[in-house]
């Protein structure tokens, strides 16, 4: 579904991505792990067209590198940023409505509706008319994921969804991700923490210094202490 081939990206003079290659299959949950600064966030920003890059990115068999972010989104690629980017002055409902890509959105053909979000997260229904800026960190995390889902992506890239959340909320995020997968959406999840990634992913990539340094099943990573020590544990 998503194939990334020898991706290079620069911030000024620093060479952030040094030939990153990986793929995500249909309905697959893939984790991209690594320490801070390894280039994980840059990788998905680059795929989304938010960072200029060299290399090839294919989505559903078509090249998407070099095209505009909104065009990439319209082809069915969803992005949930690390900073959540909740529109603070807009209500929760308005935030969700912005996830729809056009006015002629077909609610029946979409995998996600406003009602789904409100059923999964009754708190968001209660606060539907409150500004997004007043929500707690956990509520904002659910909102930002659900907002992207409203656009009915075929693959959703989630950047650090459990960062700064209490264990109970991490569990909630895990359940939401599994629900997303159940509805046939592929997921690329970027994480620093091993636990959630190993628990739900079918395949894992580890990044270090702008390169992919490990690829394999979660069990293989769990067994490979050398990789964990060198590239993950702090």
């Amino acid at each position, binding site marked *: 579904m998503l194939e990334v081939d020898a991706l290079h990206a620069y911030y000024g003079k620093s060479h952030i991505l040094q030939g990153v290659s990986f793929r995500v299959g249909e309905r697959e949950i893939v984790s991209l792990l690594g320490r801070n600064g390894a280039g994980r966030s840059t990788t998905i920003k680059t795929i989304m067209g938010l960072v200029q890059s060299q290399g090839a990115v294919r989505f559903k068999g078509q090249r998407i590198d070099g095209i*505009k*972010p909104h065009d990439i989104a319209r082809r069915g690629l969803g992005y949930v*940023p690390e900073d959540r980017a909740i*529109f*603070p002055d807009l209500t929760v409902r308005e935030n969700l*409505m*912005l*996830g729809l*890509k*056009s006015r002629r959105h077909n609610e029946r053909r979409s995998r996600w509706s406003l009602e789904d979000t409100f059923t999964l997260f009754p708190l968001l229904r209660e606060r539907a008319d409150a500004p997004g800026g007043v929500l707690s960190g956990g509520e904002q995390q659910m909102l930002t994921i659900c907002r992207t889902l409203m656009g009915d992506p075929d693959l959703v890239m989630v950047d650090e969804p459990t960062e700064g959340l209490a264990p109970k909320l991490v569990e909630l995020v895990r359940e939401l991700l599994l629900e997303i997968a159940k509805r046939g959406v592929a997921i690329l999840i970027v994480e620093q923490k091993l636990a959630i990634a190993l628990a739900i992913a079918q395949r894992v990539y580890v990044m270090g210094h702008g390169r992919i340094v490990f690829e394999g099943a979660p069990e293989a990573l769990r067994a490979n202490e050398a990789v964990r020590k060198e590239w993950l544990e702090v």
Partner: protein
Amino acid sequence: MLEIITFSLLNGVVYGLLLFMVSSGLTLIFSLMGVLNFAHASMFMLGAYFSYQIGTWIGFWPALVIAPLLVGAIGAAVERYGLRHVHKQGHVAEILFTFGLAYLVAESVIMIWGRNPIENRVPAVIDFPAFLLFGTSYPAYKVLMMAISVGMFAFLYLAFRRTRLGLIIRAALTHPEMVGALGHDVPRIFVLVFAIGSALAGLAGVIGGFALLTEPSMAAALGPIVFVVVVVGGLGSITGAFIASMLIGIIQTFAVSLDYSLLDLLRVFHVVVSSDSAFHEVAAVKIAQAAPLIPYLLLVVILIFRPRGLLGRRDA
């Protein structure tokens, strides 16, 4: 006294609304794109000249509609074919670009309409007394200016609050990148906002052109005051721009009608400054004479004590 206060207040509100019509567009463009558009007041000037020209051909009412639309179209073209390309070079390049554009517009206006003020008189259709107050009549065109400004803002407010496009623009004010990542064409939104902002400035030019003087330096005269409004109100805050517009509009109008000096104030406290004192000359300046200074004084004071402006939330 009541008469002076009432008329100054009315005129102050009319002037304040005019300032807001120009500054709201400027602050909207700034919030969305981070561009401090030095050519914004030029759009105001173009509105005045276009409406004069179109007015002489087909009359005032069609000009009232066509001139702002024309200015809006020019604004859209400036963004689409100019700023969008300059944008990649960073903010300094953008500011220089708009700076150059302001001169380009001023020189073009001089080439077409000449250096002298044109006879942009109040159109006969709206040049009659609207009502009598304290035995003095209040002109209809000022009532019209007020009505058009208020009507325009009501329309825009509803459009921003109730339409999907308004929703997308409001979202893009804080996180344009995210709006793009959700599948909305942000560059198109930029063009549109630039067009709306320019058209608003153009409309202000149409109704302000005959109330002020329509001349090639009118953009250079209004520009700095609009910047003061935007900074005092707080960069990026529409509500702040409204408060600052009204504040400056009303204060300046009142100041012009106050024929008192510091000497008069001191006299109330029985302080007499002798006429050979060095201080005498400064203290003798009437408030009315110092009126043009007031916006800039306000700017300096605000920047010292409240650098983000009255309602500003982000740094420049």
